[in-house]
């Protein structure tokens, strides 16, 4: 009897625990963001690193202060504030004044994250929420695109590819656009983290291999945009590729739309969410007033996530719908 006791541990469920911790997952995300961070440093110089440092620093400090003021346990050790800071920095142009980056960081952490209950409770992605607040508040400062590699000699401001994609008669033209290789490597104007597509894809692959994110959302998101743009342009593949590589599509699809708190859990839900994101982003790009719509698309779908979850709740194995049960009973009775 004593032997048996030693062999069997009797405890309440859960019996199988994963070793994954919030800190570990966030560390993986930070590692995955590193290639893009390095690329932004190479392309936009020290200014890019300064913007990133300010965002991360202010995010961590405001998380610490907010938790302290609200008398809650401290959560800066889970590194989620660092990820938010990095993602926010990646969504800012390199020419942005540093105080605007700081305001954005405070808004992301205090208003969007902590006021709604902290990590796991935010209703939209904090970094994207902050980007939208900044975009509506400071439209001119948020469009200070700098030409890549110009920091070595003299900083030149320029238009981003999405804005210079069409000529005066609103026809697609590659005249003013960087070559597709440049688009892939990041030799183009844009926000810090979104320019180097190769680095983003590298980071995304790392996350998928480490099973931090599932590839469903990025693939459906990017796929929907691709199909939409192909249909819109009559299957002009250069146009489709430029659309996929420009703007914040890759950054948004890989790193922002896959945020655990604000994306659906079930497979079906993920597909609906990804397609919704892609559709809204494409509609804004093609028919909206703004050149870029990825951030708005993700935030709008973030808000819909609870409803998507309700619609796509998986059925427990072996369960039968109530109505059917009643019918079976009636049949038996008759």
């Amino acid at each position, binding site marked *: 009897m004593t032997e048996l006791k030693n062999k069997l541990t009797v405890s309440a469920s859960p019996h199988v625990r994963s070793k994954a911790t919030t800190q570990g997952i966030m560390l993986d995300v930070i590692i995955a963001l590193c290639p893009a961070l390095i690329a932004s440093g190479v392309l936009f110089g020290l200014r890019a690193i300064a913007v990133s440092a300010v965002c991360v620093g202010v995010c961590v400090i405001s998380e610490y202060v907010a938790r302290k003021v609200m008398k809650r346990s401290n959560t800066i050790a889970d590194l989620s504030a660092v990820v938010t800071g990095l993602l926010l920095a990646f969504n800012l142009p390199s020419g942005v004044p540093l105080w605007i980056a700081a*305001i954005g960081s405070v808004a992301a952490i205090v*208003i969007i994250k902590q*006021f709604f209950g902290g990590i796991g409770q935010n209703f939209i992605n904090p970094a994207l929420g902050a980007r939208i607040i900044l975009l*509506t*508040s*400071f*439209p001119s*400062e948020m469009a200070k695109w700098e030409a890549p590699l110009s920091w070595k000699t003299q900083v030149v401001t320029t238009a981003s590819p999405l804005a210079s994609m069409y000529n005066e008669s609103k026809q697609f033209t590659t005249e003013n656009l960087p070559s597709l290789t440049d688009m892939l490597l990041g030799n183009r104007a844009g926000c810090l983290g979104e320019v180097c597509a190769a680095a983003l894809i590298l980071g995304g692959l790392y996350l998928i291999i480490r099973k931090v994110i599932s590839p469903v959302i990025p693939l459906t998101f990017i796929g929907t945009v691709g199909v939409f743009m192909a249909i819109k342009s009559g299957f002009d593949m250069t146009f489709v590729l430029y659309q996929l590589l420009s703007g914040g599509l890759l950054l948004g699809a890989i790193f922002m739309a896959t945020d655990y708190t604000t994306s659906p859990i079930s497979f079906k839900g993920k597909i609906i969410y990804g397609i919704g994101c892609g559709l809204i982003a494409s509609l804004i790009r093609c028919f909206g007033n703004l050149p870029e719509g990825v951030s708005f698309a993700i935030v709008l779908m973030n808000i819909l996530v609870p409803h998507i979850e309700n619609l796509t709740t998986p059925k427990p194995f072996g369960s039968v719908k109530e109505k059917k049960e009643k019918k079976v009973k009636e049949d038996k009775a008759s």
Partner: protein
Amino acid sequence: MAEKKSLGKEFTKGLIKENPVLRLVLGTCPTLAVTTSVSSAVGMGLSATAVLVCSNIVISLLRKVIPPKVRIPAYIVVIASFVTIVQMVVKAFLPDLNDKLGVYLPLIVVNCIILGRAEAFAGKNKVLPSAVDGLGMGVGFTIALCCMGLVRETLGSGTFLSGVSSINNGSGLAIPFLSQHPMLIFVLAPGGFFVFGLLMACANKLAEEKGLPKAVLHGCENCPMAKSCTIKEKENCASGEEVAK
């Protein structure tokens, strides 16, 4: 003496405890629409207060004459007459304010605060308490609007008291730095919602410190108006049933 004390209470309850905007969540439409500057917020608050006090007095006077079945149309008629008077006065003496408030001035007719106080208080209380209640609620409404206007104007356009023609020809005092980099979101609708939510949180915090229940958006439990609410007693009230269960 006891009478006086309770009158004081009728007045002060409108400031924090039963603040119409921040605690009862009434009249949110003008709250979000006209608080882009302090001056229009004050204008709106004072016009609504004037209507509120006058309509409370008249409805209280008529409370035994108005048949309960048609009380809402009767209240609306009384309120609408006072709104018309106020609108004419504003048009005549403060045409700038009239332009700024636009459609929201005549819309005071359907302001929930005024109808709500008529229904919940003036319809079953004596004249003097009703007048004081209206004044307290009006002042509470004005304070809430001013707070929102102050935050939204200083951060959103970097000015203070713009629209007052005696200061800088109506452009208001420019606040250094903020006026060069206004945060436009604060004068837009989303900023209004943000500030509204944060102010409600502050009011809840203040009320909590005084030991009052939190404001809730559904159900009769914890509702600051529960005391004066008559619907609860009837059986067909859904939220009342929930509480009873």
